[in-house]
């Protein structure tokens, strides 16, 4: 009877709808139902994140290599998309989001065998959630290929990425988003600063160290062959990233909107920061610079996107733009490794900067957690903890995997293949 009264009251409330609305919402929370609006957005967001890898990363990277390697490079992103899809369906999703414990999910969803039409996750179909998350698994693996471009064996790369996705990506996703131990200690990672970017950046660094520099690196001219492709890739990354960050709200609501707003602002700030830094340092602003800066900004705002406000985004973007510029130019030269397309400088460094600054700029009114500037310095330490855990685990397992694969089938192409170009030697094709 109480309910009846409540319902009638609701309908009679002064505004005639506000209370009813609330009543409905309360009820809805009790028994979650599908929202077609949220579902519409998440279907779209999934398409947008897929766009980030194909053609986004494929072109972003493809434009930066030398011409005889361009097909091999875009093929790496394309094949990774296919490969990780199967890995995710077979086991990856289960390990990441299956119940499990603090460190990894269980095997209850192998082959997505429990998926039904009616299954719901929050207010969207479980199927949409699975594929949305899949697109994250795809891009994380695809990003790594930039570090090993122009010299890694195709077969070894496929083996490595499949194993890495299962042994590194899925567990770390579980730590942060699957109810694992990093979630428990309160690490903030809205859309994957840790899971996606630090993770891929560290794996990339390890991979390029294990692989060694390209033949002629540092002595010969190794220049990007077509930066139009790279700008196109950066553009698709930017547009697609709306799905990445605003999609991580898993709803079409104010939080998604705010995530989109801060993404746009931080990206622009980072792009301009990199461009002006370069203009000052080298006398000319370059399109590779501003495109790289945009990606650095996108990376850095990723963990923060559901937690900060526009001013915070502006700061995060500007700082990330400058630090990643420094990483890709000064630091890399200093340390002497050959990370072909600067995956570590952009995604690794950018991810670390973003994760830390999330702890600094988090606004309670937005994401529910205050940051350093709102008097909660502890959050920075929590963030650092998440970063460290990821670096250590990812670094060690990536290293071991690569070494094992190298022993078994070898990870590097012959010098002759490098000289003639991977397109012809590995794939029997060329761009005329």
């Amino acid at each position, binding site marked *: 009877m109480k309910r009846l009264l409540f319902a009638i009251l609701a309908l009679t409330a002064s505004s005639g709808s506000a209370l009813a609305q609330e009543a409905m919402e309360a009820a809805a929370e009790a028994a979650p139902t599908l929202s077609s609006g949220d579902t519409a957005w998440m279907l779209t967001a999934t398409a947008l994140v897929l766009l980030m890898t194909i053609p986004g990363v494929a072109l972003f990277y493809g434009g930066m290599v030398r011409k005889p390697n361009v097909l091999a490079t875009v093929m790496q992103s394309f094949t990774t998309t296919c490969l990780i899809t199967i890995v995710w369906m077979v086991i990856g999703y289960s390990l990441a989001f299956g119940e499990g414990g603090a460190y990894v999910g269980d095997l209850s969803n192998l082959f997505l065998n429990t998926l039904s039409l009616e299954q719901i996750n929050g207010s969207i179909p479980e199927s949409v959630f699975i594929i949305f998350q899949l697109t994250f698994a795809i891009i994380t693996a695809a990003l790594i290929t930039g570090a090993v471009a122009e010299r890694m064996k195709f077969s070894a790369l496929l083996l490595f990425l499949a194993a890495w996705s299962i042994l590194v990506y899925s567990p770390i996703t579980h730590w942060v988003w699957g109810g694992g131990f990093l979630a428990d200690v309160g690490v903030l990672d809205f859309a994957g600063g840790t899971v996606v970017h630090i993770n891929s950046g560290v794996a990339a660094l390890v991979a390029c160290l294990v692989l060694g520099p390209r033949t002629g690196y540092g002595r010969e*001219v*190794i*220049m*990007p062959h077509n930066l139009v492709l790279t700008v196109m890739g950066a553009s698709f990354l930017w547009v697609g990233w709306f799905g990445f960050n605003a999609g991580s709200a898993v709803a079409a609501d104010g939080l998604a909107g705010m995530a989109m707003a801060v993404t746009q602002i931080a990206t622009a700030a980072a792009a301009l920061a990199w461009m002006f830094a*370069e203009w000052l340092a*080298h006398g*000319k602003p*370059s399109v*590779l*610079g501003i495109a*790289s800066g945009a990606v650095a900004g996108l990376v850095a705002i990723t963990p923060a996107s559901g937690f900060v406000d526009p001013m915070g985004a502006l700061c995060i973007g500007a700082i990330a733009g400058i630090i990643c510029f420094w990483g*890709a*130019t*000064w630091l*890399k*030269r200093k340390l002497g490794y050959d990370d072909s397309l*600067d995956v570590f400088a952009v995604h690794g460094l950018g991810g670390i900067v973003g994760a830390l600054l999330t702890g600094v700029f988090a606004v309670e009114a937005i994401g529910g957690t205050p940051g350093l500037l709102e008097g909660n310095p502890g959050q920075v330490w929590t963030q650092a903890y998440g970063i460290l855990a990821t670096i250590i685990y990812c670094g060690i397992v990536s290293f071991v995997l690569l070494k094992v694969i190298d022993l078994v089938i070898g990870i590097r192409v012959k010098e002759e293949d490098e000289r003639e170009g991977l397109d012809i030697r590995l794939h029997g094709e060329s761009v005329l």
Partner: protein
Amino acid sequence: MKFVIAIIKPFKLDEVREALTELGVQGLTVTEVKGFGRQKGHTEIYRGAEYEVSFLPKVKIEVALPDELTDRALETIQRTARTDKIGDGKVFVFDLEQVVRIRTGETNAEAL
């Protein structure tokens, strides 16, 4: 017969071609090339790595000529291709032993 190779600045190609045509030259062949010379190239910087690009885009004109036209052709090329800035290019003259027109089989003078 002579065979003349001229390396010139790309944007001068049309002017030179027209001047040679007026002179009576009926055909020539053009290639895009990269030139290295006194004219300095430029620096390209990609993410901090500086590359000295010493080559500049040039255009190579090859033209076979009857002996009597050679001097005027040289003069014409030199006049029209000239901008008085460094990098204007060079003209090289070779002796040409034999020419065949593929379509007709004509040779030498008639083949030009």
